Structure formats: C-alpha cells, structure tokens
C-alpha cells in the first residue's frame, strides 16, 4: 500500500493555489525544525476575509499536500476562522498522514497563522488599510 492517502496524492500532484501574491497583505514564513524544510504563505485580505491565499513550499510530498489543503481551507474564511485551522484538522481533511509526517502538517497551519499575524502587525503599524 502506498504510504499516502489518495487525497494527499491528489493535492501533492495537483497542488491548488501555488505561487506568490505581489504586494501581499501578509507573509508568513516558517521552517520545519525537524527536517529543515520551509513554507511561505501569502495572503490578501478584504473586509476581514482571506480573499486570496498562495504559498511556496520546499519539502516532502506531505508538506506540499498540506500547504495545498491549508490554502483551500483558508480561502474565503474570516481571519478568526482561519486562525482556528489546526494541524489536526488539516490531517483529517487529507484523510490522514503517516505518523512520521505529522510534523509537516504543523508547518502549514503555522505559516498561514504567521501570515495573518504579519497582516495584523502591519495594520497596527500603518492603520491605513481597512481590514
């Protein structure tokens, strides 16, 4: 049996929302302390909602599938809702990940949340954009 679920393979081979957002409202970059990989999330915010979510990922198949799933889950959500996306919920949505790959799922939620935090900080500092 292959180590990944069909859903993981689908997101890995056809990742959704890959890329960068120019002039993104928030950027979150996190490294994976376990294996040394990296994920960067870009968000565009309108009326407190994630209008667009994109990412770049340097990592294993699971990491790529996780970033794709996180981007799909987050798109269209309010910032508060998006902050509630957890590594567990991502693993569930992907129909599970091998135990040894669970740490990759942390990366996705962390990077998204970092991007939202980054957006909020910018808001505080500038305050000109209505979130």
């Amino acid at each position: 049996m292959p180590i990944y679920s069909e859903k993981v393979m689908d997101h890995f081979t056809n990742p959704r929302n890959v890329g960068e957002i120019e002039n993104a409202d928030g950027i979150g970059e996190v490294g994976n302390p376990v294996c040394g990989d990296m994920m960067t999330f870009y968000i565009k915010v309108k009326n407190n909602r994630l209008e667009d979510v994109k990412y770049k990922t340097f990592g294993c198949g699971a990491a790529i599938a996780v970033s794709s799933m996180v981007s799909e889950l987050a798109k269209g959500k309010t910032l508060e809702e998006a902050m509630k996306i957890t590594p567990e919920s991502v693993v569930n949505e992907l129909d599970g990940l091998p135990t040894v790959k669970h740490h990759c799922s942390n990366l996705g939620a962390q990077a998204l949340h970092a991007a939202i935090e980054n957006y909020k900080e910018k808001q505080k500092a500038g305050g000109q954009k209505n979130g």
Partner: protein
Amino acid sequence: MKTEMKKVYLDNMATTPVLPDVRRAMLPFLTESFGNPSCLHEWGDVPRDAMEAARRQVADLIGGNPEEIIFTGSGTESNNMAIKGLAMAQQKKGKHVVVSAIEHFSVLNSAKTLEKWGFEYTTVPVDKNGVVNPEDVRKAIRSDTILVSIMQANGEIGTIEPIKEIAKITKEKDILFHTDAVAATGNIPVNVKDLGVDALSLAANMFYGPKGVGALWLKKGTRIMPLLDGGIQEGGRRAGTENVAGIAGMGKAAELARVEMKVRMENLIKIRDYLIKELPLKVSHVIVTGHPQNRLPGHASFCVEFIEGESMLMLLNAKGVGVTSGSACTSRALQASHVLLALGLPHEIAQGSLLFGLGTDNTKEDIDYVLEVLPPIVERLRQMSPLYSKFLKQEKGE
C-alpha cells in the same frame, strides 16, 4: 485504451532483483529438500551439500577459502558480528576502534554500542568526494586500537575507498581490519588476499541473490565472539538453523556475478557515465555526489538544488521510475544523510538528494526515459519552492 506505463527500476542499491537461475537454485529447499543440514539422515544430506557448494561459490567470488565463510542473515548482521565480535574477542589487547564518517549504520551504530560497553571509537573524515585518506586512518590509530573498519564502497555516493592502502597501515601496526563490502561485492572485483583485510561483509541481495542472507568472510585463525548463542552451526560462530534456500541462492548469485562481472561492469559503466554526464546538462544546479570516476559501476547520485528528494521520488514514481533519496524527509529518523553531510554539503542541498542504482536489466533507453521525465518534475517543484524564488531574486538583484 490504456497503454501500459513504462516501468524503470533504478533502485538496485536498495536491492537487486533475484535472477531466474538464482530462484531455480533456491526452490528445491523450499519444497522436497526441506531437511535440516545439521541432521545426519538423508534428509539432511542434500541441504548440507548445497550449503557447502554455496560456501565454495561465495568464497570463489572473493578469493577466500570456503571454511572462512560464515553465512549470516544480512549485510547488517555481518557488520554487527564483525565490529562487536572482533572487538570483544580482542578486548584484552585494547579497547579502541576506528571507523569512517560515512560507514553504514550497521557499522556506526555497532561502534556506538561498543562505546556503551566501555570501548572508545574514532571517526575518520572523508574528502568532498567521500574518499578516506589512509594517512588519516594512521593518525587515528592509538596504542590501544584493536580494530579498523572502513567500507569498500559507499552505497549512497558510490565512492570506492583505498582499502589496499589502509590495509598496509593496519598490517604494519598489527591491527585487525574489517571492510564492509556489502555494496561492492558482486559488482566490482573483490579479492580478500589482494585487499589485505582480515574480515569482509557481503550480502546476496546486492548481486541478484535473495534478501535475508549475507556472509562474513573471516580470515583463518581470527578469533571472534559470536553474536548468537546456541548450536554449533557455522563452526559455532553463528548459531541457528540455516536459511538453506537463501544460502543456495546466494551461492548461485555469487557464481553468476563472478562469471559475468566483466560484461556487467562494462555495460553499467557506459549507461552510468551517460546519466552522470547528461543529467547536469538537462537540469541546472545539479551536483554529482561521490567520486566522479572511482565509483560503483551502476551508481549515479546527485543533489538537485532548491527542491526536496521525496517529492522528486514520488513524482518519478508516478512516471514509473523507482529511485531513492537520502533527504531528511525520506529518512525515517528525519535526519539529513550523515554521508552527504560528511562530504561538507549543507543541509538544504542534501535535501535534494537523488540516488540511481542501475542494474543489469537497465538500458540506455531507460536512462533516456529518466532524462525525459525528470526535467519537468524538477521544474515544477522549483516553481513552488521558496528557496528557488529567493535564488532567482538574488540573481536578478546582482
């Protein structure tokens, strides 16, 4: 209509397939000749004779004597037995062991276990091609050193080590020398007398024999402590009822490897060199790991920059190509390969490790297929790599 996808197995360093002749040599011992070779009745005679024939075939492959061959359950067991068993048998003379930084885990972790048992060990570095400098071995040897273990060839980077030169030093100092020749035996000429070693490990599934059977060649008169206590199989050095079918298969595989070695090597070197030359032309920012020429005939290994090995491996698998990676993500321990780090490669480059183990079944067409499917895979993964976009921005900025 669905057309069969092309399948290209390029992971012969993980295991080679079992040759049909080898399988045929094994089958009787899984059917009518099921007897235990230790038994004195006629059911024991046939398997016993088969084992002794295999012992000779394996000895002939490496230029040793049949009575110096101890059959084991794997290359890993042979290495464990050599490191722990030789050290334990010598401990009155001293308690220090020397290994290289790129040894297989079965050697490195055996050395670590010895440390827990009150021994000490020194790790000798390698250069950027993965070659051990014999003078570094000399420097590492102390007055209480009792054993040196350096591999003959590395399975991850293919580099062949200067075993003969190192053996001169150990002989001069009167220290036992073991070589892990698991990746080498059956693939390049290995002759224990010519090499000048005292012990040598090999495994059948590296030369088209079955998995689960290996051997330790131990020079006549060398004392060793057995790992397993039990009966007196293998001259009392390896207890347990023998894997007769596996051993018979190993014998046949050894014979075939000896007879066909020259032809196999010529073919493999041709397609290996083709892959090593063409891949960096088809994909930018690729590093060849290991020694460019002095490497195993079927071995080609690379690091593809800015992307990770497991994702490459999986996309190659989707195209019907089976390879391996030494990236941290592919390792169960989630650690970067100690071999690649020992070459001085940074972590993020080691992450892009890709290892091709070519076998006797492979043709130039197989390599052409890889050269066709790999570049778009690399391109696709790079397009989604934050490291690659950083690199591109840096390049523009300068």
